[in-house]
């Protein structure tokens, strides 16, 4: 592959301490992000998508902890182990602001209500590039212009509550992009927006990504969005990636029963009247109950005894396509 590797996550385990319990949320997640490409992480609510990306930038809540695994960020052929940096140390902060930008789910609550929008976007410029406020504001204005916010010269002096939802999300994207990062992590960036705005925001992100050759980690549960945006897809279920492959691998040859079920439950136009949208039976299990075997077994129509009794290894279907399922035992195990 001529693709340039920029972020590598290997065997990441993250757990949360709740009272006396230690609950594993992310269990051995590995993936790679390439320069200028989009990795989509898909899965139901609560499957550990957000925790995975928050582990990368070490923005876990206080009771969250990375137990195992490595996160490597490659900058100009130099490898930086993010998991070994101090959570709020200088180096980690520099990477968070300058190299990895983040866009969160709900633009309504992502901006501080008491500060002017321009100041909030300019903050990281002033922090990392030691810019004067006046120069930083110039950058902010040109960034907001790029993101399609009308009349940015006067809008930088407005407060977040004077912006609509879509405009706020543009501001949040501006905050993520202002220091020109290599990677943008978008954690369900359009979930809280209405449908017409969703399309605009996604188009905008795609455009920026292609134009400025950014890598994008897109977290979503919207398969339609994945089809439009992604180069690589990781399907997550209960803290594990159950299937990992290129966009074509996942959409043309979905292999894991969970992936197939997800694809079947996408609403499409043109259904017959009375024809029901398929859903996945059962509900997500308690992470404490999943100890051994495949977490999806209880909801899976192909489940067998062997799915539940021992650890299920990843199988390599094609050079780009991996799946964690006992249905593919004729394929070689993935060597780590």
């Amino acid at each position, binding site marked *: 592959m001529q693709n340039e590797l920029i972020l590598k996550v290997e065997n990441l385990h993250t757990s949360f301490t709740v009272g006396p319990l230690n609950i594993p949320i992310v269990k051995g997640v590995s993936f790679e992000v390439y320069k200028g490409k989009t990795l989509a992480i898909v899965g139901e609510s609560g499957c550990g998508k957000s925790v995975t990306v928050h582990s990368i930038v070490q923005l876990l809540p206080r009771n969250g902890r990375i137990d195992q695994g490595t996160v490597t960020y490659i900058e100009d052929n130099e490898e930086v182990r993010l998991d070994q940096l101090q959570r709020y140390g200088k180096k980690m902060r520099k990477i968070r602001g300058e190299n990895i930008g983040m866009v969160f789910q709900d633009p309504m609550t992502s901006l501080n209500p008491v500060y002017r929008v321009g100041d909030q976007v300019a903050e*990281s410029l002033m922090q990392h590039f030691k810019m004067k406020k006046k120069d930083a504001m110039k950058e902010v204005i040109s960034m907001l212009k790029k993101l399609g916010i009308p009349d940015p010269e006067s809008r930088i002096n407005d407060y977040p509550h004077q912006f609509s939802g879509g405009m706020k999300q543009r501001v949040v994207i501006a905050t993520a992009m202002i220091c020109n990062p290599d990677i943008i992590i978008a954690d369900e960036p359009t979930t809280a927006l209405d449908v017409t705005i969703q399309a605009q925001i996604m188009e905008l992100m795609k455009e920026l990504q292609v134009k400025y050759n950014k890598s994008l980690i897109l977290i979503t549960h919207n398969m339609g969005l994945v089809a439009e945006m992604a180069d690589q897809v990781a399907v997550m279920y209960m803290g594990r990636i159950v299937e990992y492959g290129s966009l074509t691998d996942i959409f043309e040859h979905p292999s894991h029963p969970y992936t197939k079920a997800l694809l079947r439950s996408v609403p499409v136009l043109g259904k017959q009247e009375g024809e029901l949208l398929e859903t996945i039976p059962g509900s997500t299990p308690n992470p404490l109950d999943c100890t051994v075997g495949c977490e999806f077994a209880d909801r899976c129509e192909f489940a067998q005894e062997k799915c539940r009794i021992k650890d299920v290894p990843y199988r390599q279907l094609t050079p780009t396509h991996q799946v964690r399922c006992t249905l593919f035992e004729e394929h070689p195990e993935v060597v780590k």
Partner: protein
Amino acid sequence: MAKFLVKKILAMIPMLLAISAMVFFALELTPTDPINYLISPDMASSAGNIEALRESLGLNDPAIIRYFRWLFNLIRGDFGYSIISGTSIREIIMLRLPATLELALVSLVLSTIIGIGIGLLSAINQNGWIDYVGRVMGVVGISIPQFFFGIVVIQIFAIQFGWLPFGSRMAPGQTAFFDRLHFMVLPAFTMAIAMTAALLRYTRNSMLDVLNKDYIKLARSKGIPEWKVYLKHAFRTALRPVLVILIFRLPILIGGSIVIESVFSWPGIGSVILSSISAGDYPVIMVTTLLVAAAILISSIFVDIATALLDPRVRFE
């Protein structure tokens, strides 16, 4: 802003009038007859004398006339006279206000600094040792009544060890601030305890609430240092509810604390209120009550101003 202020201040006038009427007529309804306090028991027999006294004090006029007479005098700056001691109420207030102001200011400043400080540290180190200390302080300070705490500190520091005086404001003949500073230690400390505890709990809870907000995560994702996340992004927004209770405490600067002032025999407005109530000195009760009410109304204007300054969402509405 100016328009808003003028509106607020104008709205205060009918409120004050209503309060003055309520105070006046409520006292009118009580069975206390000031005459009983004015005359010595041996004079009680001569009914003619009493009647003459009533007439000369204007007590026989209808209540409504007496109310307006009192009100106009008040507006002219004539607060009237105490019917017990005969001294002008203005003089009483001028004499007692510095004592109340001094004590209340010291405990207010003390409790604000300590309360907000520990509340902040407590929230930042949630579940750490400082948080446990803060939480225990909060519960203890709020649940122990002030008079009890006052008695305990008097018992320990004044009686057992004899380090500090157990009451009053200064020794006879002393006037310099530093001479009487040690008189203030126990009452100020006792008064500050409960205020600190409430403020500490408010600050802690408000901070914890804000620290869970998405914009804190966004602020961290910008890579700014943690102290900036706490002070610039979290504290500024968390401050609003804290400031509200803080400002609503300002009236104690005028009214003092009845409990503290009587436990420590502190010669402030609070003890004036207490003694005038027990003596039925109704002109004093009316004026002091009105003063405290005015102080509360003014504080509520301050709350509005502070909220508008802190939160742009309020400003533009």
